[in-house]
């Protein structure tokens, strides 16, 4: 209450200043009053939001702000995340919730752009019930929200957020990412490619035209050049995110005649690209790498031999996943509810919610069973080691997660009506990541061809061999 009072007094002072300088000259007196009251309300909400929530009794529900794309082309990636969140929250609640408190989620559509997402974040953070934000899918959203999370002191867990720039300064207190980042994700493809196709000479790249696409190209190229210096990049294309037509780009890639085409297109863009490139023979003229290819395996008929992965360890059919009854149960429940098996964005979201639940439990264990504050939750996440549906995520000192990387090639089997991933490798999370605080690109440039020799080889990740 004291904060409300202070904020109202502060707002009244501001409004006096406003009157003094006649800033509201165009407004009639009644509207002026509305402005003053609105400002007071906004400041009150702001001050409450920035106030650390004290240790308290258990709330009636645990609110989560979940940020994902529920509309637009990116929804092809975002909706599987939302579906997984719905399912996982139901499963958590069926087992008694978190510490006996049921979980509820408020979904925010990232397609509305950074300004809208920031406003929604502030609104949700203003409600003390929402102690944790699961944000977000897009790297751009994550970069926009990170300073707000630190300012409002709200634990914010990136369920996707691939960009390595997110936690690069190592100073974050409230932002966590229990996933891989772009550095291990794309080095993994370079190593796998050189193991599988050591005589590769020319590479073409087609990535989306924003940070994720450009970062991935930089990392993949730097890793290739470090591990095989004679490789030449013969074309680099960055079509606009959400582009529906890739026919010209496909012609350009074909005329460059590369040994390898690398792409981290995703969502509907990836589906469009695959559907348009397949009949035009791109998959037969070049070895294609689709970094997010697993997301379209059940929707688009990908030919055999395309290098695909899951940007982490979230492959629902991996040997580790198959050996975990919880994962099998989750995959079947997902299939029965949404009509298809979970893709890796679904697994990333499910794993993130498991991570959040583990943080609550650890925090309550540490403070004697009391309901934790936001600060206590953030403390519980630091350095944590959590068993997920598909492996183990370990949080480093810079709040970045160490997650294994699975890469393989598409393969048709009689067991499924769609291609699966075969000839798999699983790289240890820490083997492809520089130390916290180290410049990733500088670290990659120090890699030597010998670096890859000590790593597992394609086909080494099989059931019962880990």
């Amino acid at each position, binding site marked *: 209450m004291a904060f409300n009072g202070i904020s109202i007094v502060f707002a009244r002072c501001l409004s006096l200043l406003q009157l003094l300088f006649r800033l509201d000259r165009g407004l009639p007196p009644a509207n002026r009053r509305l402005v003053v009251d609105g400002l007071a309300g906004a400041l009150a909400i702001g001050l409450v939001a920035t106030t650390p929530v004290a240790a308290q009794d258990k709330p009636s529900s645990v609110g989560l702000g979940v940020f994902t794309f529920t509309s637009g*082309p990116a929804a092809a990636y975002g909706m599987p995340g939302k579906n997984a969140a719905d399912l996982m929250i139901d499963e958590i609640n069926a087992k008694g919730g978190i510490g006996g408190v049921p979980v509820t989620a408020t979904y925010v559509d990232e397609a509305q752009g950074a300004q809208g997402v920031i406003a929604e974040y502030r609104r949700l953070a203003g409600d003390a019930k929402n102690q944790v934000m699961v944000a977000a899918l897009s790297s751009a959203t994550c970069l926009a929200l990170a300073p707000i999370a630190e300012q409002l002191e709200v634990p914010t867990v990136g369920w996707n957020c691939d960009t390595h720039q997110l936690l690069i300064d190592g100073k974050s207190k409230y932002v966590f990412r229990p996933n891989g980042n772009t550095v291990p994700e794309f080095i993994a493809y370079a190593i796998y490619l050189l193991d599988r196709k050591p005589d590769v000479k020319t590479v073409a790249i087609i990535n989306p035209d924003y940070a994720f696409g450009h970062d991935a190209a930089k990392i993949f190229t730097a890793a290739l050049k470090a591990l095989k210096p004679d490789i030449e990049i013969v074309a680099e294309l960055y*079509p606009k995110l*959400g582009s*529906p037509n890739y026919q010209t780009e496909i*012609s*350009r890639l*074909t005329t460059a005649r590369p040994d390898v085409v690398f792409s981290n297109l995703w969502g509907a863009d990836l589906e*469009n690209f695959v559907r348009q490139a397949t009949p*035009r023979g791109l998959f037969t003229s070049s070895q294609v790498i689709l970094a997010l290819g697993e997301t379209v395996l059940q929707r688009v008929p990908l030919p055999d031999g395309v290098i695909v992965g899951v940007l982490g360890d979230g492959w629902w059919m991996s040997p580790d996943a198959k050996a975990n009854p919880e994962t099998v149960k989750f995959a079947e429940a997902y299939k029965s509810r949404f009509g298809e098996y979970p893709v890796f964005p679904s697994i990333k979201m499910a794993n993130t919610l498991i991570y959040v639940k583990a943080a609550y439990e650890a925090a309550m264990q540490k403070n004697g069973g009391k309901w934790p504050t936001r600060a206590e939750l953030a403390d519980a996440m630091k350095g944590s080691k959590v068993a997920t549906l598909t492996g183990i995520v370990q949080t480093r000192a810079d709040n970045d997660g160490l997650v294994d990387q699975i890469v393989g090639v598409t393969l048709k089997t009689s067991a499924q009506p769609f291609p699966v991933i075969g000839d798999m490798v699983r790289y240890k999370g820490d083997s492809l990541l520089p130390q916290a605080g180290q410049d990733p690109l500088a670290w990659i440039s120090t890699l030597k061809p010998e670096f890859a020799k000590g790593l597992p080889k394609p086909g080494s990740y099989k059931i019962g061999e880990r």
Partner: protein
Amino acid sequence: MSNAIIPLLLDSLASAALIFFAAVGLTLVFSVLRVLNVAHGSLYSIGGYVAASVCLFIASRQLNPYLSFVALLFSAVFVAAILGPLIERSLVRWTYGKSEAVQILITFGLFLILEDLQRLVFGVQSLYEDSPMRLLGTSSIGGVVYLNYQILLVAMAVLVVVGLRLLINHTRLGRLITAVVTDREMAQSIGIDTNRIFILAFSLGVFLAALGGALATPTSGIAPGLGADTMVLAFAVAAIGGLGQIEGAAVASLIVGFARVLAIYLVPSLDAVAPYVAMLAVLLIRPYGLFGSVTARRI
């Protein structure tokens, strides 16, 4: 790079064909009604959604796949028959003779309504149906595999230009439209039902927009947001060609298509801005567009 000349030219033509379909309806409506229809892009995407839905239905019922070609055409007719008269009578006619600002505000409002309506009806996930593309197969030209459907699109674009010119110059409806465009009041005074001409012209514009979306469907995905992108590109083409000029739209589509393809081949980072750089260059030299003029109005 020499081995890329033929693909570059073919890609320019294929790209220009798609761009032309997006722009020609806009320019036709402007030439007759003097209304800049900001909702034109939404009508393009609605055409795409309806065509994709019908083609998906045909595929799901395992009907003759060649029916999908008929479906593309009839989807555009269906959209034009429903939305053309409805929009013209309920909204657009109130903007005749009003300032451009009012026209743009009203059609922009319509654009927002149609965009939300699409989300409501067709959902937020992208739709894709490529059976017409698959049925026609591929051809290898200049060492690059092209879809025969892309070549069909170029032929269709030429057909539309010729067809529109024949319609306007050699049919009674065309002569009535020309009379209304030349002098609306005089046309009314000699007994031409201008309201009917406006409905027909606007519906023809909607048909061309919907046809563009429908024909693009087999090679492109349809997703929310497509309408806005199409609208911006259509405006650029209309501005380059000269607002209201059908042949201007065709030439401008070639320029924009070539600029975009050239950028992808040579300077990929300029891909998105290339059409607008071309527009800027043309408007600096000819502020009323290649085929436009200050006073005369032609179609």
